[in-house]
């Protein structure tokens, strides 16, 4: 009896349990903004996913795989990537990179590009290593570097001065070469590159990439190249793969995403492409974390790529049609925002654009001594009062630099016509309210 009493007094878990690697990375911007959008938004241009359907050929491939005679497709496949998928990815990216790729050693499948990023940091970043992150950045880069015990080192893209009367382009966000060079030290392990860039839509030019490549080679630094939006480039611009530049193949892991490539973000299929001597370490992390990725979606994505390989460059190719459609949607949203007085910066790629909202200061009450950046307050006010959801740009920068970006908000335009029209209606009504007495 007393034994039981003793134990029940001791029952509560009293010692601190959380591992130190989670320190400082528990907050997440999406939690708050997704909740706000869910509660208030009539038109959600916030979180980045399409509200239009995936292509029919891909949905058919998935259903065929699920219901087909081969029920073994519901069981484990090869851990490092379903053979039909890694084979077609090796073929496809081999052509694009100009080299022979071995599907077994130069390609590895992951649960979304997100996990590919996690693997790179876990495999290559030790405590004390520095990782250069270009701001603004997809928010997980910073927390993943920290979780790996690394130190993020930020270098900002800065907006050139606007030319009167002309819309700005994402190309006007630029790195200062001397500033970039100064960030490389003997502790620098890697630089994270994201092109086309989320949130700005910037597509790094060959010259800009060569600048980065030169520094990587000079300082023997790895390049983690997040190219999930590789197909979403507009106005005939070229997406240049940094792994194809001089000296870069051996030190680059290129990351891709079926979610963004085929408009199926919910399938969570991503991949890494790179030299065996780098990918071998990603394989080690993979076999000690989730080990296998789901089979069915890999099979369907393989079929999708097979179709695209056959149609490459042709008008029916999804990789031709999707950017064409998205370019129109981009132009539509740019027009809406410009007409209202928000200053959109026309993106060269991705399905995001940022707009300067400094002209709307009058609408959003000033909160003296507020820690919260202006754009964040504005975005919250906008979703609550106008029902239009967008994401403040300062959330894509590190704490110390939020002031550089706090007059911009990010819109996602991978949306049906009806959604963009509804957004336009909200914006037009807002403009009328501002100009009427």
């Amino acid at each position, binding site marked *: 009896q007393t034994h039981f009493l003793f134990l029940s007094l001791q029952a509560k*878990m*009293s010692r601190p349990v959380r591992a130190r690697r*989670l320190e400082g990375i528990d907050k997440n911007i999406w939690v708050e903004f997704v909740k706000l959008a869910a509660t208030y938004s009539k038109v959600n241009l916030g979180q980045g996913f399409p509200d239009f359907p995936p292509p029919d050929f891909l949905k058919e491939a998935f259903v065929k795989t699920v219901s087909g005679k081969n029920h073994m497709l*519901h069981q484990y496949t090869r851990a490092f990537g379903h053979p039909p998928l890694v084979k077609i990815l090796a073929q496809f990216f081999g052509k694009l990179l100009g080299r022979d790729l071995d599907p077994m050693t130069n390609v590895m499948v992951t*649960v979304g590009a997100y996990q590919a990023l996690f693997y790179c940091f876990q495999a290559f970043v030790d405590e004390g290593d520095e990782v250069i992150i270009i701001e603004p950045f997809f928010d997980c880069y910073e927390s993943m570097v920290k979780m790996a015990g690394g130190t993020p080192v930020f270098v900002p893209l800065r907006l050139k001065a606007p030319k009167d009367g002309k819309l700005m382009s994402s190309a006007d966000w630029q790195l200062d070469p001397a500033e970039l060079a100064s960030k490389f030290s003997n502790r620098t392990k890697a630089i994270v590159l994201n092109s086309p860039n989320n949130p700005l839509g910037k597509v790094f030019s060959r010259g800009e990439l060569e600048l980065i490549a030169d520094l990587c080679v000079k300082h023997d630094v790895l390049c983690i190249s997040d190219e999930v939006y590789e197909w979403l480039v507009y106005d005939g611009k070229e997406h240049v793969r940094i792994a194809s530049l001089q000296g870069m193949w051996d030190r680059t892991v290129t990351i891709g995403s079926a979610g963004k490539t085929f408009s199926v973000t*919910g399938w969570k299929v991503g991949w890494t492409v790179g030299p065996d001597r780098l990918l071998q370490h990603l394989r080690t992390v993979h076999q000690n*974390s989730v080990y296998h990725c789901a089979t069915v979606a890999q099979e369907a994505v393989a079929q999708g790529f097979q179709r695209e390989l056959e149609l490459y460059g042709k008008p029916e190719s999804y990789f031709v049609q999707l950017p064409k459609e998205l370019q129109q949607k981009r132009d539509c949203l740019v027009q809406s925002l410009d007409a209202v007085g928000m200053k959109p910066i026309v993106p060269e790629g991705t399905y995001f654009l940022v707009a300067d909202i400094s002209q709307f200061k009058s609408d959003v009450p000033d909160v003296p001594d507020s820690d919260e950046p202006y754009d964040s307050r504005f975005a919250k006010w906008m979703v609550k009062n106008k029902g239009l959801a967008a994401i403040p740009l300062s959330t894509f920068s590190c704490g110390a630099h939020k002031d550089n970006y706090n007059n911009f908000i990010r819109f996602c335009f991978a949306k049906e016509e009806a959604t963009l029209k509804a957004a336009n209606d909200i914006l037009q009504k807002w403009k009328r309210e501002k100009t009427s007495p």
Partner: protein
Amino acid sequence: MLFASRSFCCLGIRTYQLQTDLLSRSFRFSAPTTMAFRHKNTRRIEGLDSNVWVEFTKVAADPSIVNLGQGLPDISPPSYVKEELAKAAAVDRLNQYTRGFGHPSLVKALSQVYERVCGRKIDPLTDILVTVGAYGSLFSTIQALVEEGDEVIIIEPFYDCYEPMVKMAGAKPVFIPLRYKNDGNPASSADWVLDPAELANKFNSKTKAIILNTPHNPMGKVFTREELQVIADLCIRHDTLCISDEVYEWLVYKGNKHIKIAMLPGMWERTITIGSAGKTYSVTGWKLGWAIGPQNLIKHLQVVHQNTLYTCPTPLQEALAQAFWIDYKRMDDPDCYFYSLSRELESKRDRMARLLQEAGLKPIIPDGGYFMIVDVSTLNVDLSDVDEKQPYDYRFVKWMITSKKLSAIPLSAFCGPETKRQFEKYIRFCFIKKDSTLDAAEAILKNWNKQPA
């Protein structure tokens, strides 16, 4: 390294040509490609690169081999499970991101099923995390709660990933073997037990967690309430966590009951219970699992999750939710898949045991799970031709694959360094296989002593 310019006409309208001016630029740098490549792996994955599965799944991939090795069913999942997935994929928004910590309809279904099993309220949003397989739950749990300086107790034999995951988190694995009782029957998994005094000795102030696996892979042991109470008492006394891998929870054979250690007094607040869609519904390729526990522990797993993969696939989660509703409604009915699969597997277990016994072997009869282990040294097979550096069971399995076209998994892969010798005569067979596979295995075992033509 010199780059020749190449063009790719097969790319259609656009040819891709490497700039020839790169040739002239290559001399600007001091031999970049001959510089020593300093980018090795991080410390956290040092020594974790080899893996029994990589070795043996490759070898057994040959379709002419009767594969009783890796634990995957070759029976079909229930048709309604496949149908639900096809239905889910037809809904456009179910092909886009869902809630990070678990698709709402799935965590709701899981909370209902487990509330019924556990008899306690489980909050779907705070007490559950959906992960990429139970494997992913193990990873998230260990990354969230285990670190350098910690010790984690692992019961041997163990599912092989426990050891490298604990090491990757920077902690020290502390092993304790199951041993068969002196007066017990070594052929019964129930008679392989932990020595309570030996177990108590493994706990100290550094012990962060103990990993429990019941029903147990590879032995098939189903821990009794009394055995779990011994573990629970120690966890409470030493304020230790319990990571309870219960993926085979439904696969328990007559005369046995699966007990959840989290339900013992004082254990809910210190236990993470892990489950698996792959094992529950015979869909290992769906890679969906879950961790259930108190909010103050699950919240840390959720932080790991949001920094590692953020969301799990949507259509699979939706389909799984629908399948759970179907079976939740019939949890009082013997036709519920949770029970019907178990009955189906029990007869396969009995058949597998008979086949091995007829071949002159003494398998350990599992009370749960779908694996059976057996000491093969009594067959006295001449392994002198097979790679001498490896343990006996690795060599035996390799020999068996090549000369008998039958595969299994060597048990020493599931042991820590001190216990490998104890188990190196054992191999593991998986029996969640269709009749024709077991027929083929039977033919091989019947003809074991005949020389190949």
